[in-house]
C-alpha cells in the first residue's frame, strides 16, 4: 500500500525556523520506530540528525519553528516550492509559539534591553505561524509534538490515507487514563477542557494543570467545528477559582497565545484588567 502522489520511498526534509529544536528531537526520540522510518523514507535533509544535507525537491517537508525574520519569510517560500507535502511540527510552526508573545510587546525595547549591540539584530516585530506565509497541508500541535502523532501522520501519508488526528478536549484522555481532575479536586486553573487532545494528558497525570500547549481543541484553523467555549472557562477561573483578570489573560496567552480562540479570550481579559 502506498501513496500514488509520492515516490515509492518518499524523500523527507526536516527544516527549522525560529524554535528550540525540541520537536525535531521528538523525531529522534522515536527510537525503535526510527529504524522503520529510515527504511520507509529517504531522509534527505535533517541537519539535526545528519550532516549529509541533500537538496530538494522533497516529498515531505516537516517544518519546525515560526517566522521571525525577513530572511525566514523568504526561505519558507522556497521550502514550499521544494515540498509536495508540507507539515508543520509543533506550536511554533503551527501557532507562532511562545515567541509570539512579542506580538504584544515592543521589539525595539526588547533588543535594547537584551543585546549590547542591538543594531546587529535583524528581526521582525512579530512571530507568525507558517500558515500565514504559505499553504500548509497538515499541522501537528504541541510543545513539543507527541512522537506517536508524528509517526501516525507519516504512516498515513506513506500509505495514502487521509491525514486525521482527533481534536477533542484533553479531558477525554484524562478520564480514560484515570487521572483525577486537578480543577475539580484541587481548584487548579486547568486549560484541559478547551485544549486539543494528543499529549496523553501528561500534565494532569503529574498533578499539574494543563497550560494548553496543544492549542485550542476543535475549531482552530485547519479543523472543523466551532471554537471551544473559552469564555465560560475563563469566567470560572475568575469567579470560581478567584484568578484576577491578568492571571486569566496569562492562562490563555501562553505557548499558543497567538491562535485565535486563545488570543481572543486573552484580549477580553486584557480589557478587564
Amino acid at each position: 500500500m502506498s501513496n500514488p502522489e509520492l515516490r515509492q520511498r518518499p524523500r523527507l526534509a526536516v527544516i527549522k525556523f525560529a524554535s528550540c529544536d525540541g520537536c525535531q528531537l521528538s523525531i529522534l526520540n522515536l527510537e525503535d520506530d526510527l529504524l522503520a522510518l529510515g527504511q520507509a523514507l529517504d531522509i534527505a535533509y535533517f541537519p539535526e540528525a545528519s550532516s549529509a544535507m541533500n537538496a530538494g525537491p522533497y516529498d515531505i517537508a516537516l517544518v519546525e519553528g515560526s517566522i521571525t525574520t525577513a530572511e525566514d519569510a523568504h526561505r519558507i517560500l522556497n521550502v514550499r516550492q521544494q515540498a509536495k507535502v508540507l507539515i508543520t511540527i509543533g506550536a511554533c510552526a503551527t501557532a507562532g509559539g511562545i515567541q509570539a508573545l512579542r506580538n504584544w510587546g515592543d521589539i525595539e525595547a526588547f533588543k535594547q534591553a537584551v543585546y549590547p549591540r542591538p543594531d546587529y539584530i535583524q528581526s521582525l516585530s512579530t512571530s507568525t505561524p507558517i500558515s500565514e506565509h504559505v499553504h500548509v497541508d497538515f499541522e501537528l500541535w504541541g510543545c513539543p509534538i507527541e512522537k506517536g502523532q508524528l509517526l501516525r501522520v507519516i504512516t498515513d501519508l506513506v500509505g495514502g490515507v487521509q491525514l486525521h488526528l482527533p481534536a477533542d478536549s484533553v479531558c477525554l484522555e484524562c478520564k480514560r487514563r484515570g487521572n483525577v481532575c486537578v480543577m475539580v479536586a484541587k481548584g487548579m486553573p486547568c486549560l484541559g477542557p478547551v485544549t486539543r487532545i494528543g499529549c496523553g494528558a501528561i500534565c494532569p497525570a503529574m498533578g499539574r494543570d494543563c497550560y494548553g500547549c496543544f492549542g485550542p481543541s476543535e475549531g482552530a484553523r485547519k479543523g472543523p467545528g466551532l471554537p471551544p467555549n473559552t469564555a465560560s472557562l475563563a469566567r470560572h477561573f475568575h469567579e470560581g477559582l478567584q484568578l484576577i483578570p491578568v492571571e486569566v489573560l496569562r492562562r490563555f496567552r501562553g505557548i499558543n497565545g497567538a491562535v485565535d480562540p486563545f488570543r481572543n479570550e486573552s484580549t477580553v481579559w486584557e480589557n478587564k484588567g
Partner: protein
Amino acid sequence: MAMAREIGVLPRASLQRLLDALSAKGYRIVGPTVRDGAVVWETVRSVSDLPVGWRDHQEPGRYRLEQTGSHEVFGVVHGPQSLKQFVFAPREPLLQIERSKDGFSAHPTLPQPEKVAVIGARACDLAGLATQDQIFLNGAYRDPYYAARREGLFLVAVNCTRALSTCFCASMETGPRAKHGFDLVLTEVDNQLLIEAGSTAGHEILANLPFTRASKEQIAEANTRVDACAQSQVRRLDHSRLPQALYEVHEHPRWDEVASRCLACANCTMVCPTCFCHTVEETPDLSHQHTAHTRLWDSCFTQEHGYIHGKNIRPTIKDRYRMWLTHKLASWIDQFGASGCVGCGRCITWCPVGIDLTEELPALLRPSEQPSATSGQQEATGG
C-alpha cells in the same frame, strides 16, 4: 420471600478477614483509595489501603476530601470512577489485523480472564452496571470483551449511610440501599459491619467469615441510617413527566443559556456510570501490514460524534448538551425502558463549571416567555 435473609455482623476490625477470604478465592481486590485529592479504584491488599477516616464533600464543580480521624472505612461515598471501567474498558484492544496476499485476517484480542473483587460499590454504581449489562450483554449483540470482564467480577456493595449534597439516588429509586446486583453487601454501623450475601458466590465467601447473626436491633439501626441517608438528600430529579415533557421543550431558551456555560469537555459523560458511547481507532504500522483496532471511550460532546458523511448534525454546544440530556433523561426510557440517570451526581461534581442537571431539567420544563434563538444557525464545515 422464599427464604429468610441471613444478615450477619462482622466487627469492623475483622474486615481484613473478608479481604483475605477473597484473596484466597483468587480474586484481585480493588477498592477505593485516596490519590490526588479524590478516591479512585486501586488494587488493595489490606484495610489500611482503604480511605479509613476520610470523607468526601461534593458540590457542583468541586470535590474535596477531609480526614476526620475516625475509624470509619466507608466514609467516602464515591470518586469520579463508577464501575464502568471494569467492564467497558476506557481503551479496549479489539482486533489485530494482518494483511495477507489475498486480503487480510483479523484476530480478536479478548482480555485475559481475571477475577476481580470490587469492594465499596454503591447502590448507584450497581444501577449503572445493570444499565451497562443491558447494553453490552443482554441486547441483541453480546459484546465478548465486556462479557469476559464481567464474568470475573465479584461485587461487595456498601449501603450508603451518608448522602453528598450532589446525591439524588432516592428520587431515581436506585439507592441508597443496594437491592440487587451484588455478591455481598455491607452496612457500616459504628464499629460493626452488617453483611449479607446476594449470590451463591457471596454465600461461599460469607461461610468462611467469623460473623455472628445480626440482632433485630442492629438490623433496625442499619435500616434507620440508610433511610435517614435517603431523607437527607437535598437534590432530587422529578422525572414523572418524562420522557414526553423534555421532547416538548426542544426550542426552550434555556438550552442557549446552558450552552453558554457548557465547555463540551465531555467530563459528564466520562464519569457517568451509564454512558456507553465509544469510538474505534486504527493504529497501523509504517509498513501497513498490521493494524491494531482499539475501542475508546467517546462522548456525544465531541465534534466528531455528530459527524455523518459530509455534515455535522450537532455542530454547536447547544446541540450536544440537548442531545446528551434528552437522551439521558428521556429517549433512554424509550430505548431501554428506564432512565439513563442513576442519581449518583458525578456529572454535577465533575463538571468543571458545575452544571447541574437537577437544576437544568426543572428550568427546561418551566414555561418560557421568550422563544429560543433559531437552533442550528451555525453550520460546521464537516471533516
